[in-house]
């Protein structure tokens, strides 16, 4: 008969991953803290008082550009180089209005209203694509009704007809 003497497992064995799965969170924490203690005792550290880092009020800036708000170096006058003239306007307005972003308004080929109209119908047509077949049939009826009120709707919604005996 095996005695009640439990073989003591070594600490290292207990520290292994497969042993830790069974542990509760509390014992895990205890183990971690113990490990930390061991590590911190081995770490070397300076036994000096903490020196306060002086906040220096001097910032070193080696370029002239921000100091004097200089312009962009490439310039063109009287339409010599139209691309550079466009750039000049862009760059110089960027300097002055840094917070407000200048939106490039591209000249629209299609006006906003037309876009809105097209989009409305677009939603409808694409929506139809995803309808189930039966609903599509109903939609067709509705459209036909809408177009020609005089024509009586002959097609009723097709239901499953039970085969008669």
């Amino acid at each position, binding site marked *: 008969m095996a005695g009640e003497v439990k073989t003591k497992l070594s600490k290292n064995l207990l520290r292994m991953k497969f042993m830790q799965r069974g542990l509760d969170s509390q014992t895990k924490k205890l183990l971690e803290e113990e490990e930390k203690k061991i590590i911190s005792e081995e770490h070397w550290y300076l036994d000096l008082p903490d020196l306060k880092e002086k906040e220096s009020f001097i910032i070193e800036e080696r370029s002239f*550009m921000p100091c004097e708000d*200089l312009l*962009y*170096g*490439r310039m063109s*006058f009287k*339409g*010599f180089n139209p691309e*550079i003239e466009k750039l000049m306007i862009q*760059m110089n307005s960027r300097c002055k209005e840094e917070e407000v972003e200048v939106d490039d308004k591209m000249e629209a080929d299609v006006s906003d209203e037309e876009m809105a109209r097209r989009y409305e119908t677009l939603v409808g047509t694409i929506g139809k694509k995803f309808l189930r077949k039966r609903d599509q049939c109903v939609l067709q009826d509705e459209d036909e009704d809408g177009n020609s009120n005089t024509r009586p709707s002959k097609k009723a919604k097709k239901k499953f007809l039970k085969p008669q005996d």
Partner: protein
Amino acid sequence: QYVPVKGDHVIGIVTAKTGDVFKLDVGGSEQASLSYLAFEGATKRNRPNVQVGDLIYGQFLVANKDMEPEMVCIDSSGRSSGMGIIGQDGFLFKVSLGLIRKLLAPKCEIIQELSQLYPFELVLGMNGRIWVKAKTVQQTLIIVNILEACEYMTAEQRKQALAKLSGK
């Protein structure tokens, strides 16, 4: 003597073309390097057409006293925004750094007055180099002379000189 500073736009002269990297003379103590991929729309297959002796307008990506300065012709969003190879013709000359600062000031009278004369194109590098191009050689040289001389002229002398020119 110009000291390269990060973010500065300068005019460089291509002195060497070694493999994937160009060496540019920017008027500093060291030559700057410029990778061929640092142009807008450049890929390994689509290389920029840069020859030795070309002028390039770019900005410094890296510029400190411990490392060789590095230039790029592209900004942080990937667009060239005016940087790159400066075209054919035109005239490059050197002025002092102080004059460049004066010329680039937001309301520079010299530039405003010059712009009234005739159409021309101007590129100012922070390293003291200016490139000018106008329609005729004579006009170009006039602008060059004015820019060089206006460092030591008073405002009145300048206006007199310009009045003479526009009178002609």
